[in-house]
Every structure is written in C-alpha cells, then in structure tokens.
C-alpha cells in the first residue's frame, strides 16, 4: 500500500465511524434494559439484550398509525411526482423552446425555497378551503416542493438516453405521446427509480408542513409522532431509541441498496445546474 492509499483508507474508516457509530450506539441503547441504560460507566455491550422497548413502541397505536400515514403520504407524493415530473421532464429534455431555461431555473428556485415562508398564507388558504388537517393538503404541498428536484433528475436522465430510438419511432409514424409511452418510458425506468427514491426520502422526512397543517394525531406521519412520543415518554429512553431505529432502518436499507444510483442522480443534478 502506498502512503496515500493508506491515508485514504484511514480517512474512509474515520468517515464510516463518523456516520455509523452514533447509529450503532443508539441501537445498543434500544436493546439495553433499564439497568444497563443508566449504568456509569456505560456498558459497551448490553448484558441482557432485550426487545421490550420495541414492543413498547409497536404497542403504541399513534406510532403504528404514524408509520402507516408516512407510507401513505410519502407513497402518494412519490407517485404524483413521478407522473407529473416525467411528463414535464421529457419535453424539457428533448424539445428546444425559448422559455426552457427560464422554466428550469424557476423550478430550481422553488427547490431551494425556504418552505417556512409560505406556512402562514397556506394555513389561511387551507383553512378557508376546509382542507386543514387532511391528507390531500399535506400531499399537495409535499408534491409541489418535491417536484422540482424530481424534474431536474429526470431531465438529466432523459438527456443521456440516445435520441436515435425516438427518431426511429417518429419515422415509423409514432407521435410524441406514443414515443414517450412506448419507447422512452421503458428506457427511463432506472431514472424513475432514482427520482422516486429521492422523492420518497424527501416526503418521508418532511416535518414542517405536517407539523403545521395536521392536528389530529391519527393523521400524523411518523416524523411528527416521534418528537411528541419523546415528549410524552420523556424518561423512557430505551423506547425513544427503539423508535428512532424503527423509522430509520427501512429507509437506510433502501438507500444503501441503491446508493450508487442515488449519488449519481443527486450529483448530476447539482453539477449540471
């Protein structure tokens, strides 16, 4: 090993420890019993590993509903973003029209937008429309703010597709709609997956809108449930640890399984901006 290779190995190791160690520690807390949790000096390995904290969390009806709500809200948002995003991204990637770059810039501005700026007027508008504290409201808002990123990723992806296939389809008499549905969409599946996962992560993690526009805890997504759970059970540290692990694991697993694609999607969007 050369010196620089060794150095980079040490650095990568530090990076891995940086990212993973806190999660491993909280996982350890989640399977520790009360005595281990409060012991000083702390136990590195729990003496009596236990899953009672997980049982406590799963027995909480609000937490269970939170998981279902998160899947519902993030899932619908992702679906809407993929449908609206791909039909918007395709012409933006392929056609040359004068307002193209203006439209792309406008989308980007919305992606960087401080979302807190609009919670007051939206609160008022949703209230007068009778949509406060409903799923459609939160899904619409999440969709509007996730769409720009989905569109950017998909535009970058569509541009990389070879144009010849589409030309061939058009020579054979296919219209733009047919070309899109029969030729482009099947080829675009990897790009849709990338955009879909990033949108899902965005919507799953969203907190401000959900915390502002949803009152009834039966409709709260898990990001809103967790802090309130921590406030209500402020000394049940084991259960709090278990709750954070439960929310994180499925997400982390999906993201890790598809990491290469996600990094490409994210950085290509960023660097072509």
């Amino acid at each position, binding site marked *: 090993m050369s010196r620089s290779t060794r150095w*980079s*190995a040490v650095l990568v190791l530090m990076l891995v420890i940086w990212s993973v160690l806190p999660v491993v520690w909280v996982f350890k807390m989640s399977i520790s019993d009360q005595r281990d949790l409060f012991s000083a000096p702390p136990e590195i390995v729990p003496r009596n590993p236990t899953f009672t904290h997980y049982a406590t969390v799963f027995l909480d009806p609000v937490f269970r509903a939170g998981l279902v709500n998160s899947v519902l809200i993030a899932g619908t948002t992702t679906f809407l973003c993929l449908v609206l995003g791909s039909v918007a991204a395709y012409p933006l990637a392929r056609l040359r029209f004068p307002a193209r770059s203006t439209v792309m810039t406008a989308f980007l501005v919305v992606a960087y937008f401080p979302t807190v*700026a609009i919670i007051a*007027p939206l609160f008022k508008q949703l209230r007068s429309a009778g949509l406060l504290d409903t799923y459609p409201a939160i899904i619409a808002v999440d969709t509007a703010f996730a769409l720009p990123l989905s569109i950017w990723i998909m535009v970058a992806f569509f541009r990389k597709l070879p144009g010849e296939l589409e030309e061939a389809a058009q020579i054979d008499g296919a219209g733009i709609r047919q070309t899109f549905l029969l030729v482009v969409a099947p080829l675009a599946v990897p790009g849709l997956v990338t955009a879909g996962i990033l949108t899902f992560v965005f919507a799953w993690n969203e907190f401000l809108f959900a915390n502002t526009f949803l009152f009834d805890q039966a409709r709260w997504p898990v990001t809103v449930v967790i802090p309130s759970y921590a406030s209500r059970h402020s000394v049940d540290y084991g259960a709090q640890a278990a709750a954070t692990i439960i*929310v994180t694991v499925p997400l982390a697993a999906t993201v890790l399984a598809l990491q290469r694609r996600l*990094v490409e999607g994210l950085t290509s969007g960023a660097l072509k901006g």
Partner: protein
Amino acid sequence: MVSPAAIVIAVVAVFPVLYAIYLSFRDATVTNSGQWTGLSNYGELLADPDFRTALLNTTLFTIVSVALEFAIGMAMALALHRSFRFRGLARTAVLIPWAFPVVVSALMWRLMLQDQVGIVSWLAHATGLTDQPILSDHTSLLVAAIGVDVWKSTPFIALLLLAGLQTIPRELNEAAIVDGATAVQRFVAITLPQLRPAILVALLFRTLEAWSVYDLFWVMSDRQLTSLSTYVYSGVRVSQLDFARGNAAAVFVFATSIVIALVYLRVFRSGGTGEEA
C-alpha cells in the same frame, strides 16, 4: 406537458409567497385579511426581543455550521479524491446520516447528550469538559445543534465536492506539477477555480437550509431553542393571535434568503475567470 407540474408548483408554492407578502402589510388574522397597516408588522417584529433572539440564534447557527461543514467536507473530499479505492464504502457511509429524517438525528443525539443515560455527557463529565447537563442552557443547546448539523451534513458536502473534483481534467494538475507548482499553489490556482460550481451549489444549498432551520432546533431542545422558522411557526400555529407578526417573520426569512442567494451568485460570478454555465 410541462404545465400540470408548473400549475401545481404555482398554486402551492408561488401564489402563497405573493399572498404572504401582501398579508404582511395588513393586520391579518387566520380568518380575516385585515386592514392595510403598512410596515407596522415589521416594526413590531424588530421590536420583539423573542424575534431578535431567534435572529441571533439562526445567524450564529448558519455561519458556524456552514463554515465547519465546508472546511471539514473539503478536507474529506480532497483526501477521498486522492485514491480510487474505498470510494464505494465512503459513499455508503455518507448516505446514512443524510437519509435520516432531521427529527430522528436530533432525537438520537438528544439521547446521547442526555444527562442520565447519554454517552456524550458521560464522556464530557468523565474528562472534566463540563460538569453541567449539556441540554440545560441555551448556549450549550445551540452548540449541540451545530454539532448535530455538522454530523449530518458534512459528509454530503464532501460528496458534492468530490463529484466536482472528479470533473477537473487531470492534465491541468500534471502540467502544474511539471512547472514546479506546490500542492498549495495547485489548490489555489487550479482546484478552487475549477471547483467553483460545486462549491457554489454546496454552500448555497447548505446556507439556505441552515437559515430556515426548524426541525433540528425543535427536537434537540424540546422547543426551548428558537430560530426564525420556529418563531414563524409559533406565531402562525401555536398562538394564532400573532398570525400577522409570524407571517411578517416568514416574509423576512424569504427576503433574506433571496439576498443570501444573490450575494453568493454575485461573489461566485465576479472575481472568477468568467466561465459560465
């Protein structure tokens, strides 16, 4: 075909901003648009000590966390760029804190900083760093919030910068080495200017995100620590009596974000070699 997406964005994102600006000049409530009152909402805002605390907290948080994240992230990216090995592993590690919901990272660290069961506070007490509970006063809460943000965002900045480093043509550095340039000279004369677009994206993105920090403060401090965004929230949602003032604070966040973005764009466009996307 762009229009359905554009309509959703216009209705849910663009129109409310204009409406917010309009309402900020009126004594509006949740139910009523009120009367024209000029700048009085803004006057009240600036006179409110709670708003000033929020502004100070947010400013300190943004400056310190973005500076640390950029410095450490740049060091990470440069080191990772020197070798092609382990990059996949590094990427995987980096995505873990990034993919977490902010509320979850905040709660995780709260548990580790907690006075009775927290490993970090145990270490801090054992090494004599502090004998106070970490989550007790505002200063240490702010420091803790900055720490969590650095933990969560630095690897991601490193990744963006690494992607930028990979686009720099090797020949540039090779030619400079032949000409006898030192590593520092090459960094200043080649890497930094070539990396400009990636740096702009990373800094702009992080600064705007930090400037509207909400979830992190909310959960880390169990609502004790205020930011501009938590101030807006408590005006609009918690005590609806302060709707107008909360909304004015929201417009303030929006306007200052635009100023921040314009300053970045200006700094990055002037003083360069004039290469434009």
